[in-house]
């Protein structure tokens, strides 16, 4: 079984180094899908349904065709003609310029038969609500999870608390929208796609178009963010391919921001009714939750309660609820921020009731040994002891408070394959069909390969983002690093051994005596031979040494802990919450690159703040349209909302590589909510915690 060498012996991994494609990105040379261009390329766009529930009676495209510059039109895009949300794809067009395209979209004449619809969770749960699917109830059968015996658990409890929490729908809205640039090369289809899964998209599209896999190629050199929303093949890719065929020209179809908001996934909302019991000594004995969430017309609105803490008796019933909205897709730590917002507040409420410090209460109910250490490190650095015991005790209208919350994550990753070529001039290429979402995968691959071969990062040419390369899974679920890094390590190790054999023969020593270090190949022991990497590669008889390798057990692991501390300021005159400071202890295993790791943690926290305070999909109840499908009214954190963030990387290299992308976004909203309570003495139990809700809560408290 392959093993990582000890951290002290590593020259690159575990250190700080800038990403290898940084220069390309800061100069604008990096070409994303949105930037692809081919001679004769047309611009494609999708017409989305105007109504949240309707039968398409007729689509008249004659006016569209009458516009000069229109080259292809599709009116049979929808499989059944029965639409279930605003924005659902019903027609498409390709034209010679973006301007003509915009005009063309407005020339479709669509006849709809409007049907009743339902938009919001609570409303859709009512018996009389219109059904999203005629033959199915909006409220799905419950999924039940049971451990221990909750009745007994509550019987043991000395304090029982009940409360209800509500979270909103959040949209991934990566800055590069979803889309593809496609062209046909004979009967082969070449797709540039903004995707988290080049192989997955190839398989999906081949199936949808009924084509053999080898006739479809998917490429994604750079991509502008996905956060889980780009894990699957897109209907837009199929549409682009059909438009391209019809017009016999390349087509680039990137969704506009409005369709991006409506059709490319979201984090489901949640309604959590929780009952929790504990003993006076602070042991939680029982937990019961009934939760609901809507993933629109899709499923997967689960709420991962009780998320972090170890409770012997748990019962959780969850119902997915259908609404007339675009289907949810994975979004950074699916099911977790919702759960954490509710659970961390529940924990604080219970701690208060028991007269315990919230941190002590958590230590008592957290069985994870790593997190036990992390809680202490974080509390120390944050200055938890300065937290005021009595909420709302600051004088004046602006009040400060502190709160905390815990991170968790489960899966590791497996299955990646890779190949490497070493040329007789010393150049090295690595090929792997993974992709870099901005997490730094390209750089990590170079780092692992360079570490193994005793080279520098810049000596490794990394090729990723192409379905022609060895298979790697989708980049989601924080699985990429734990899946890719071992594969690269094994491939490089194999290459090293092959090259080592040649040198051993050359020097007439045993292969075990060959060492690769600092750009040299050395025969250790008596032989005292040494060649530069380049000279060594010169011994390759064939001009290229090619090896294949894959993921193996023992280099990565699953199970991630972590915790966060938040300090906020609440203006009780305006209801505005400002996050002042976050201290995060991030659980890292073996760190590949400290810089990109810190960046990932920052990103998770900032998205968490955004979720806590600003973001929310808003549907107009009269039309079912989203009123805020833009960055003016769908508000996300900007520079001025970014607090001081301190990231403490807690590394345990012996655990190997673990995923770090999702856990840091989980506890932020709960930690902030607890800090808000500590500041003003009222709980905000619904996300986002906007000024109107804070003012309302303060007014209720006075009354």
């Amino acid at each position, binding site marked *: 079984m392959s093993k990582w060498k000890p951290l002290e012996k590593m020259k690159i991994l575990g250190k700080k180094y800038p990403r290898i494609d940084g220069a390309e990105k800061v100069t604008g040379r990096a070409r994303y899908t949105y930037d692809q261009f081919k001679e004769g390329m047309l611009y494609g766009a999708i017409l989305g349904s105007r109504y949240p529930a309707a039968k398409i009676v007729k689509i008249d495209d004659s006016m569209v065709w009458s516009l000069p510059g229109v080259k292809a039109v599709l009116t049979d895009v929808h499989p059944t003609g029965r639409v279930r949300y605003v924005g659902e794809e019903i027609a498409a067009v390709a034209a010679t310029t973006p301007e003509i395209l915009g005009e063309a979209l407005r020339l479709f004449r669509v006849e709809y038969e409007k049907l009743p619809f339902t938009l919001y969770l609570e409303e859709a749960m009512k018996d009389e609500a219109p059904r999203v699917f005629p033959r199915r109830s909006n409220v799905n059968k419950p999924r039940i999870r049971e451990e221990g015996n909750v009745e007994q658990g509550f019987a043991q409890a000395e304090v029982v608390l009940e409360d209800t929490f509500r979270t909103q729908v959040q949209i991934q809205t990566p800055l590069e929208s979803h889309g593809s640039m496609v062209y046909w090369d004979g009967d082969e289809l070449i797709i540039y796609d903004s995707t988290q899964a080049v192989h997955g998209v190839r398989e999906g599209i081949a199936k949808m178009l009924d084509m053999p896999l080898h006739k479809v190629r998917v490429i994604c050199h750079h991509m502008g963010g996905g956060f889980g929303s780009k894990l699957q093949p897109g209907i837009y890719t199929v549409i682009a391919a059909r438009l391209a065929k019809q017009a016999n020209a390349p087509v680039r179809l990137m969704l506009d921001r409005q369709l991006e908001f409506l059709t490319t996934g979201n984090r489901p909302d949640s309604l959590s009714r929780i009952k929790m019991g504990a003993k006076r000594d602070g042991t939680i004995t029982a937990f019961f939750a009934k939760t609901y969430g809507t993933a629109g017309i899709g499923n997967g609105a689960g709420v991962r309660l009780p998320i972090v803490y170890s409770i012997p008796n748990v019962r959780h019933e969850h119902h997915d609820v259908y609404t007339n909205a675009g289907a949810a897709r994975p979004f950074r730590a699916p099911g977790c921020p919702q759960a954490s917002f509710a659970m961390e507040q529940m924990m604080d409420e219970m701690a208060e009731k028991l007269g315990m410090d919230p941190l002590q209460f958590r230590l008592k109910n957290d069985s994870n040994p790593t997190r036990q250490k992390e809680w202490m490190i974080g509390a120390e650095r944050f200055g938890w002891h300065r937290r005021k015991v009595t909420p709302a005790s600051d004088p004046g209208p602006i009040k400060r408070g502190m709160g905390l919350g815990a991170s968790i994550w489960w899966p590791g990753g497996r299955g990646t394959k890779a190949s490497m070529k070493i040329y007789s001039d010393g150049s090295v290429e690595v090929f792997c069909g993974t992709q870099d979402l901005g997490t730094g995968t390209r750089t990590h691959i170079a780092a692992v390969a360079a570490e193994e071969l005793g080279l520098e990062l810049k000596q490794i040419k990394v090729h990723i983002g192409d379905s022609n390369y060895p298979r790697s899974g989708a980049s989601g679920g924080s699985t990429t690093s734990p899946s890719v890094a071992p594969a690269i390590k094994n491939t490089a190790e194999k290459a090293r051994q092959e090259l080592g054999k040649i040198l051993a023969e050359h020097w007439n020593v045993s292969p075990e005596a060959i060492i690769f270090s600092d750009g040299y190949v050395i025969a250790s022991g008596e032989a005292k031979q040494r060649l530069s990497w380049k000279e060594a590669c010169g011994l390759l008889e064939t001009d290229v040494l090619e090896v294949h390798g894959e993921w193996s057990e023992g280099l990565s692991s699953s199970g991630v802990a972590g915790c966060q501390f938040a300090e906020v300021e609440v203006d009780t005159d*305006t209801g505005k919450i400002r996050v002042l400071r976050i201290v995060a202890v991030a659980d890292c295993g073996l760190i590949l690159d400290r810089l990109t790791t810190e960046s990932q943690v920052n990103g998770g926290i900032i998205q968490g703040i955004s979720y806590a305070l600003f973001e929310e999909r808003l549907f107009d109840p009269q*039309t079912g349209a989203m009123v805020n499908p833009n960055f003016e009214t769908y508000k996300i954190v900007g520079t*001025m909302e970014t607090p001081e963030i301190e990231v403490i990387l807690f590394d345990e290299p012996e655990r190997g590589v673990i995923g770090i992308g999702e856990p840091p976004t989980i506890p932020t909203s709960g930690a902030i909510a607890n800090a808000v309570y500590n500041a003003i003495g009222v709980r905000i139990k619904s996300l986002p915690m906007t000024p109107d809700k804070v003012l309302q809560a303060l007014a209720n408290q006075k009354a």
Partner: protein
Amino acid sequence: MYNFEYLNPTSLEEVSEVLAHSDGETVLLAGGTDLLDRLKEHLLRPRQVVNLKNVRELYTIERNEGLTIGALVTIADLAADAYIQENYPALSQAARSIATPQIRNMGTVGGNLAQRPRCWYFRGVEYRCLKKGGRKCYAVEGLNKYHAIMGGGPCYIVHPSDLAPVLIAYGARVTISGANGTREIPLEQFFQLPAKDLKKENVLNENEMITRITLPPQPENTYSLYLKFKELESHDFAVVSVAVVLHTRKKRITDASLVLGGVAPIPWKIPEAGALLKGKELTEPAIQAVAEQSVKGSDPLPQNGYKVHLTRNLVRRALTEIQQQL
């Protein structure tokens, strides 16, 4: 965006010629930060777009007994002007609170005053609301968290301009020129409620334009302040904003002007503020009285009652800040 004919006059004279021939399908283009947004949303289909940016006369900030600001002066230049910072500080504050550095470099004073509302129903092409010739105001039964708490009906937009409340508080006048001549009116009278005319927010006619704003000189011991509450500090329109200008002599208020932004379809003047404060010192009870007065008669929609609290609190805060300078 539909195509249009682009006209590029280089003098006011040429603009006047163009406007004289306009047929109701001509729109003016200044910085474009509002107009392009609406063109892209297909909210209008003008035959002609008249670029004003090459009209040099409109770029001046002129000191006279007061101040004259050309319509094409950018928000950034307004914010950076040292004389304005010194003599009309609330105007600088308002300018700095607008949008983003990039947009402040592009957007103009004239465009800021003539910009159209941000109401999400008005901006969405899918809603045929009253303003667009439809039959209902969607905000009434829809999502109205940012809508008017005063002066609304039958349409409940709020006026988005940050400059307007301050300019009105300073007693600004606006010069409007058109094919039929030039008129100068108090800026306060420039804006009009939906009850008067649903289709537009001001008295500009099709073939007219704003050429400049004139500010009267402010007496010694004038205190002024613009407080803007936005949800996102990075850039956001005002949820509520407060412009205050107080003239004082020996700590006593000789004249007071209070104008609210973000609460009504027009910049909302609280005329009683003058009467409540005139001749008085700025004491706690006086501040409280003005704060209460500022929300009297407010009539919130189901989701924007919080704006009443917010307005009251912001007025109190603004006056308290001035009190500390006095």
